[in-house]
């Protein structure tokens, strides 16, 4: 037993606080928009130039001029505003966006993040990820605890080229929730049916508790 994708997204949803402006990455982070807690009002930013991102459109609402940063068609809300890419990253770099929730390939115990390239493999580019992790208030990573080979993605040091150095605040995996603290990672929550010993076995990074 461990959390599935939706449970991870739901757990991340609990990090959202009323009034926050938030940027959600592609993949599991996108699912977090389904788990915004009742009574919590958050505004989603899409870095291609939109605040107040709405749900996917119905067939007859599709608008080629209205997409998110994953190039998917979306809709606007009453509160929506549009702006240029430079203004969008002024918000991001300028610290106006409270939180970014992103996927990752590797996270190190010092908060280093690697999620944009694997040497020798196809490089697609970093998009806005480097700007986001450098600029937003808090960076939360959602990812599977281990890779396809069963190796820990929470490491003592990243092996892949970094997206940002010392930028991650918290990691939500299928096994639990981890906070980046002095000296390593602190286990702050354990997924249903998982034991701390199992987490220790499957984690390369230093666990301080």
């Amino acid at each position, binding site marked *: 037993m461990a959390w599935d994708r939706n449970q991870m997204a739901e757990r991340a949803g609990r990090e959202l606080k009323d009034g926050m402006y938030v940027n959600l990455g592609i993949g599991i982070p996108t699912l977090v928009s389904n788990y915004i807690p009742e009574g919590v009002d958050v505004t989603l930013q899409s870095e*291609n130039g939109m605040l107040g991102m709405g749900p996917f459109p119905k067939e007859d609402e599709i608008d080629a001029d209205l997409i998110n940063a994953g190039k998917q068609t979306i809709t606007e809300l009453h509160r929506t505003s549009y702006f240029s890419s430079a203004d969008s990253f002024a918000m991001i770099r300028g610290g106006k966006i409270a939180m970014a929730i992103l996927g990752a390939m590797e996270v190190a115990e010092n908060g280093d993040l690697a999620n944009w390239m694997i040497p020798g493999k196809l490089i697609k580019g*970093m998009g806005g990820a480097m700007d986001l992790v450098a600029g937003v208030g808090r960076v939360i990573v959602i990812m599977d605890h281990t890779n396809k080979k069963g190796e820990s993605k929470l490491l003592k040091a990243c092996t892949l080229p970094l997206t940002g150095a010392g930028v991650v605040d918290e990691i939500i995996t299928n096994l639990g929730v981890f906070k980046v603290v002095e000296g390593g990672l602190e286990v702050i929550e354990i997924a249903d049916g998982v034991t701390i010993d199992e987490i220790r076995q499957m984690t390369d990074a230093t666990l301080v508790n």
Partner: protein
Amino acid sequence: MKKVYNSAAEALEGVLFDGMMIAAGGFGLCGIPENLIEGIRDAGTKNLTVASNNAGVDDFGLGILLQDKQVKKMLSSYVGENAEFMRQYLSGELEIEFNPQGTLAERMRAGGAGIPGFYTKTGVGTVIAEGKEHKDFNGETYIMEEGIVADLSIVKAWKGDRAGNLIYRKTARNFNPNAATCGKICIAEVEELLPTGALDPDLIHTPGIFVHRIFEGGHEKRIEQRTVREG
């Protein structure tokens, strides 16, 4: 001063040359200057350096310039949707300089605003920072990035007037206002070209001073990821 032209071909007359640098607006296929890209393809200009967030797809957008091997180098943040791009890049025919998306936007904004360089936290501690000047401000480290001044910028807007004033629509705005400012010459294509005075001056996104040539053209507006919900 005449700014209005009848077509992309006419608007591009006399401004293209081999080896030039072009800054283009658009995000994915959204808000791209479709007609100008086709016009540059038809003109056959070679050895281009193109600053654009993305590189289109194989048969649309900037992808059609890659098909004809007109591009020498791209400055982009993400190029994952273009197989021909990847083929040329892996075979060494095409050079790419990856720029973080916000850095690319700010480089265009800065270049257009007469600012040759600026400091940013983005990319510190990564390969992006290698070889760049590092400087500390208030205990934090930043790297210097340079403004982009292109020989030509090509942008797409929703509405424009004969004075070159532009209004964009929804997320088709994206890099267009920033690209518009950073070209020594800027050509804008619009869905609707209106008489001067028809646009509300308070709602203009790009003032006409930045736009040297303008024309009206049809737009396919292809959608990359058609995502819908039930109901």
